[in-house]
């Protein structure tokens, strides 16, 4: 009995319960509880939210017209009228970075969504109906996956020509095989679940079963993939624009801003390289942290 007593530790019930999340009531406090367990994820979330807000309220935050040129302020140093300086055409760097967030966000979200939707459809058809369709789709996927994301996007962008829509298409196509593969794999296991059989016994058609019963059960890994993909899409857009294949002039794209200045002005006006580069790094950092946290929360296999 004596040893028993030493093993039993005094328990603060309130502390134990709050650690277990017992006082989590609304979705707001549930979020707080999650944030407490994933502090890095919270940082990522804050960065992404700030990024989205900046993009949304760009006209309010920008001090100048991002497209207005001014020979007088060409290559102006940071400070004074231009907080972060101005480029060789005299355009305000701060305003261009703010508006650039819009381009990055639009390309990132649109290409991720387009890629995921097409990928999900392809994966679902391939996994649920199988047969020769599956065989053909999988071989095409193999070919697409064999090429690096950037190379594939480069080829796409080069053949489509530079424009916002084409950039989105070029970035979303390489996403398709990844999403399709993930959806197909879960579809293969979900379609054998008894509830699919039960839905058939209920008189439901195959298409409806696939959409209503199978698809929702395969989405969790795609949400993880999509969050990670967001950062990668933004980076790819910057890379494409850096290479002159992305967003055309005069729209402010972070990647283009880097490429315009990197060669000629990196010594004379380093702020033209530093600030857009920081913006890209910060957003990628944020989306990656958020992606990791989302994976930890949604994927029980990754939990320690």
């Amino acid at each position, binding site marked *: 009995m004596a040893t028993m007593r030493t093993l039993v530790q005094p328990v603060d019930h309130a502390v134990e319960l709050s650690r277990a999340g017992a006082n989590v009531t609304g979705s707001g406090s549930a979020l707080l509880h999650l944030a407490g367990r994933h502090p890095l994820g919270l940082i990522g979330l804050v960065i992404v939210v700030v990024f989205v807000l900046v993009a949304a309220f760009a006209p309010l935050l920008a001090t100048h017209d991002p497209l207005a040129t001014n020979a007088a302020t060409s290559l102006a140093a940071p400070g004074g009228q231009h907080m972060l300086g101005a480029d060789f055409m005299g355009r305000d760097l701060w305003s261009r970075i703010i508006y650039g967030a819009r381009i990055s966000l639009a390309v990132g979200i649109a290409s991720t969504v387009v890629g995921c939707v097409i990928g999900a459809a392809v994966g679902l058809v391939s996994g649920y109906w199988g047969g020769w369709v599956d065989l053909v789709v999988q071989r095409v996927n193999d070919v697409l996956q064999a090429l690096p994301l950037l190379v594939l996007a480069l080829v796409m962008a080069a053949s489509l020509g530079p424009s916002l829509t084409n950039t989105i298409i070029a970035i979303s196509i390489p996403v398709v095989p990844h999403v399709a593969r993930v959806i197909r794999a879960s579809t293969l296991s979900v379609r054998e*679940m*008894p*509830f699919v*059989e*039960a*839905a*058939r*016994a*209920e*008189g*439901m*058609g195959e298409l409806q079963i696939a959409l*209503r*019963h199978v698809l*929702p*059960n395969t989405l969790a890994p795609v949400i993880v993939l999509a969050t990670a993909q967001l950062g990668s899409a933004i980076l790819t857009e910057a890379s494409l624009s850096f290479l002159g294949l992305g967003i055309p002039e005069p729209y402010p794209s972070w990647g283009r801003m880097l490429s315009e200045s990197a060669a000629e002005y990196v010594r004379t006006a380093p702020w033209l390289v530093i600030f857009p580069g920081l913006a890209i790094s910060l957003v990628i950092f944020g989306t990656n942290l958020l992606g990791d946290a989302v994976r930890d929360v949604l994927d029980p296999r990754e939990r320690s």
Partner: protein
Amino acid sequence: MPGETATLAATEPAAKAAPAVLEVEGLKTWFFTRGGIVRAVDDVSFSLSEGETLAIVGESGCGKSITALSILGLVPSPPGRIVGGAVRLRGTDLLRVDEEAMRRVRGNEISMIFQEPMTSLNPVLTIGAQIEEALTLHQTALSRAEVRARAVEMLQLVRIPEPERRAKEYPHQLSGGMRQRAMIAMALSCNPRVLIADEPTTALDVTIQAQILELILDLQRRLGTAVILITHDLGVVAETAQRVIVMYAGRKVEEAEVFALFEQPLHPYTRGLMGSIPHLVDETTERLAEIPGMVPALNALPPGCAFAPRCTMATDRCRAEMPPYREWQAGHFSACWHAEALMTGRSPPPLAGEG
């Protein structure tokens, strides 16, 4: 049609004279595999009257579930094929209607409850949404609100407390017994004529089993649904069914009224199944009798009686010739060369493991 269903059977007692709702005749469901033809269901016939409970009993792999899936036209194909027979639902042969017509039958006129309440419900949809599903598929005249109200009503019918709240919950928030109740609510939501319950209590706790069986029987009495109860548990059969079919290796080996069957089984396999039920009143401390051996591979059945290799009564004739399936007493059928001996001797020769 659906409106008629409710009134039709509710007043009808479970009488023998009631017309047959479902007739299965010479059903043959075979699987064509690399190892040869697997005769999962071979020449199975039975009929089911309104409000009746028919039990299909047998070990795993004897063809019970494939019989059920054949009735619903859900045999996985390939490799499965229904190669012969007829399944008549009030005169219409379901094996000869197209897929679309068959979809209108499933869940509407013939429903099914599955063994595993844990995995037979979709984890990402609420209980209410899943009950509403069958209603929106078949009762197209109902409005959204009516469908929702009916789903809650069904949950109440299967005695789930706080049905409004439960309808909004997900399967993982319910206990096993509750989930099986929800499955029953789903299956009965369109007032089917026939309910196929495939091992409905196997995955449940013993204390819950009795409740679920009682619930199925009570609802059957109230709604007049005919029930096909698939089980391997003769204890469940004794409590619930009026008539019993014993299947072995894809074939019917015995069929009788439940009392006649328990009183005097006319097939050694049935006796073996009964010998393996523990008796509370029995004062002996002997081991339970077991049937030696296993169900033979269905693609390599012996030429004679499929049960012969495991049967203590087996003779050379059993091993060489398939015994005919015939009526030995009124309403009592059996396929055994020794049925007569089993019938005359009140205490037939002991089984292996007995005494």
